[in-house]
C-alpha cells in the first residue's frame, strides 16, 4: 500500500442556525493515499461538500464549526491549526477545485495572473517575475490548453467551461500539492468534456502522484476514476469499500438502491415494464433525524430494530477493505 497522506478521523462539523444546531458531518473517517483516488458519493445534502470544506477548514465560522475529530495531514492535525497556518497549507499542500468553472475564476484577472497568484503566495522565493510567468504557461500546457503562451493573457470569459476547469486544475496543481480535493469537478460540464477532464486528472495523478478526494453524485464517474469509495448519507458514512467490491457486492440497502437506480441499456435488468428502479421517499431533514438508522423510512429491508431500540448502526468492518453501517446488510441475506 502506498503512503498515507491524509487521515480523517471521526470528523464532526456542525452548523448553528436559528432553528438549532445541525450536524452536517457526523463522525466521518477515511484515509487518502498517495497517488490514489478516494470517491465520496451521496445525494445533495449528505455532507460531501462540507466534509471537503472541513478538511480545507473553509467552513464559514460562524455558523459552521468543526466540533470533533482529527484531520491528520502527514501526521499533523489540521483541526488544531490556526488560520495563518492553514493559509500556508491551502493551495500549497492541499488544493481544491470547484463545481462551477464558470464562476470560480475571477473575471477581472487573466488566467495567467490567477495561476501566478498561487505560485506567488506559496513558492515565490527565488523566482523572478519571468520564472513565475513561465511556470504559469507551463501549468497551462500541462493541463492541455492549446497555445498556452497566448491563452495565458486571456480573461476567463474568453474560455469555454472545459477550458476554465482545466485552468482551475492548473491553479490547484501549480504548487504540486499532496492532495487535490475535487468537489463535483465535472457536474457543470457536458459529457464529452467530463471524460476529458477525468482523463486529465488521472493522467496528472500518475505524473504528480497526488492523492485525490473526488466528490460526486455520479456513480459512473466513481467507477471510472476512484480506487476506493465512501458512500455518505445524512452526514454519515454508510458504506466504504474498494470500487470493485462496492459495485459487485454492495452491502448497505442505500448503496444497493443507488446502484439499481442507474439507468441500464439492458432492459431485462430493470424492473417490470422497463421502469427505472428508484429509492422511495425523501432524505430526512437534518433538523429532525429519526431515532436509530437514518435510512429506515426508505429502506426495503427495514426491521423493528432499525427504529431506535439498538441506537444508530455503527460502521463495522465485514471484510478487510469493506465496512458498512447497517444491522442487516443485504449481501449477507442474499448469500444465505
Amino acid at each position, binding site marked *: 500500500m502506498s503512503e498515507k497522506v491524509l487521515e480523517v478521523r471521526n470528523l464532526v462539523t456542525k452548523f448553528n442556525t436559528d432553528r438549532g444546531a445541525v450536524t452536517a458531518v457526523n463522525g466521518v473517517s477515511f484515509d487518502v493515499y498517495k497517488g490514489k483516488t478516494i470517491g465520496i458519493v451521496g445525494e445533495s445534502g449528505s455532507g460531501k461538500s462540507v466534509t471537503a470544506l472541513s478538511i480545507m477548514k473553509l467552513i464559514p465560522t460562524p455558523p459552521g464549526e468543526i466540533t470533533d475529530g482529527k484531520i491528520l495531514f502527514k501526521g499533523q492535525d489540521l483541526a488544531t491549526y490556526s488560520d495563518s497556518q492553514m493559509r*500556508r497549507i491551502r493551495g500549497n499542500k492541499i488544493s*481544491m477545485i470547484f463545481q462551477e468553472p464558470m464562476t470560480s475564476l475571477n473575471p477581472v484577472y487573466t488566467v495567467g495572473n490567477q495561476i501566478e497568484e498561487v505560485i506567488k503566495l506559496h513558492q515565490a522565493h527565488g523566482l523572478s517575475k519571468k520564472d513565475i510567468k513561465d511556470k504559469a504557461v507551463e501549468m497551462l500546457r500541462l493541463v492541455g490548453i492549446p497555445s498556452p503562451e497566448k491563452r495565458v*493573457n486571456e480573461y476567463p470569459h474568453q474560455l469555454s467551461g472545459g477550458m476554465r476547469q482545466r485552468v482551475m486544475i492548473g491553479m490547484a496543481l501549480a504548487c504540486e500539492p499532496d492532495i487535490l480535493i475535487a468537489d463535483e469537478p465535472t457536474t457543470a460540464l457536458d459529457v464529452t468534456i467530463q471524460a476529458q477532464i477525468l482523463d486529465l486528472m488521472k493522467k496528472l495523478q500518475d505524473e504528480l502522484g497526488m492523492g485525490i478526494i473526488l466528490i460526486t453524485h455520479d456513480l459512473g464517474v466513481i467507477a471510472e476514476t476512484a480506487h476506493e469509495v465512501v458512500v455518505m448519507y445524512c452526514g454519515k458514512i454508510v458504506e466504504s469499500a474498494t470500487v470493485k467490491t462496492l459495485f459487485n457486492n454492495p452491502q448497505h440497502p442505500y448503496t444497493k438502491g443507488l446502484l439499481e437506480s442507474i439507468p441500464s441499456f439492458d432492459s431485462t435488468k430493470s424492473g417490470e415494464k422497463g421502469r427505472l428502479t428508484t429509492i422511495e421517499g425523501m432524505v430526512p431533514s437534518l433538523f429532525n433525524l429519526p431515532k436509530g438508522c437514518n435510512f429506515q423510512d426508505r429502506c426495503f429491508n427495514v426491521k423493528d430494530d432499525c427504529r431506535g431500540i439498538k441506537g444508530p448502526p455503527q460502521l463495522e468492518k465485514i471484510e478487510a477493505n469493506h465496512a458498512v453501517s447497517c444491522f442487516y446488510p443485504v449481501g449477507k441475506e442474499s448469500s444465505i
Partner: protein
Amino acid sequence: MFESTLEKPKSLWLDAFGRLAKDKVALLSLLIIVAYFIAAILAALGILGGTWEQEVGPSYHPPSREFWFGTDIFGRDVLQKVFQGIKVAVSVGFVSAMISIPIGIFLGALAGYFGGIIDEIIVWFYTTVSSIPRIMLLMGISLIMGKGLFAVYWALGLTTWVTLCRLIRGEVIKHKEREYVQAAGAIGGGHLRKLFRHILPNVMHIVIIQFSLQFQLAIKSEVILSYLGIGVQGMPSWGTMIDDAKLELARGVWWQLAGATLFMFGIVLAFNILGDALRDALDPKLKGK
C-alpha cells in the same frame, strides 16, 4: 477557425471605453469635461483668468467683442472671473471626491465583507449621517472648520461618501459568496487579499460611476455654499458671482449671472451624461443593450 478567440484580449476597461466611445454624446461630454479640466489647470497656473483682479474696463460694461461676458461693478472682466470659477469648481469636485471615495470604499467594503457587528456599526453610522439634512451638515462642517476653500473640500468630502458606501457594501455582500472568492480562499488567500485583491476590482465600476455623479454634486454644493457666503472667500467662484448677481439683476445687469450659470450648466450636464453613459458601459447587466 479560432481566430476570433485568439485575437488580443481586451481588458475590462478597454472594452468599456470602446463601448463608451460608440456613444457620441457621451464622448462629447467627456471632451467637454477634459476641456474644463485643462481650463482649470491653466487657471491655476495663472495663464487663464490670471488678470481677473484688474480693472480692465468701465463698471457694468455689457457683453461686447472685447468683454464677452461684460464687466462687473469694479470693471473686472466677467469671463476672467468665470475661469477662476472653473478652477474652484473642478478643484472642489476633485478634492472632495478624493476624500469621500476612499472613505466610502473602505467602510462599505469592511461592512459588506465582515458583516456582523462591524456591519451594524457602519450601517448605523451612515444612516445617522444621511439622516441629517445635507445642507445643514455642510454648513455645520464649513462653519466649524472656518470659512474658505479648505473647509468646503472637507465639508463635501465628509458628507458625500454615504451613497458610495451603501452601494459598495451591497455589491461586496453579493460578491463575497461567489465561487471565485471561495476559490481565492482555497489557494491560501486571507481575508484582506480576498477583499481588496479579488472583490474590490470587481466592484470598481461603481466607484467610477459614482465619481462622475459626485463630482457634479460637489460643484453644485460649492455654488450653494459660496452663495450663502460660507464657501470660497477672497476669490471668485460661480457661487459668489451668482450671489453678486442677485443685486445686479434689478439694474438689468444679467451677464455675470449668465456667465456663471452657463459654465456651471455645461460641466454639470456633461458629468450627468457621462455618468449615465459610464453606467451603461460598465454595468455588466446592461451589456449589449
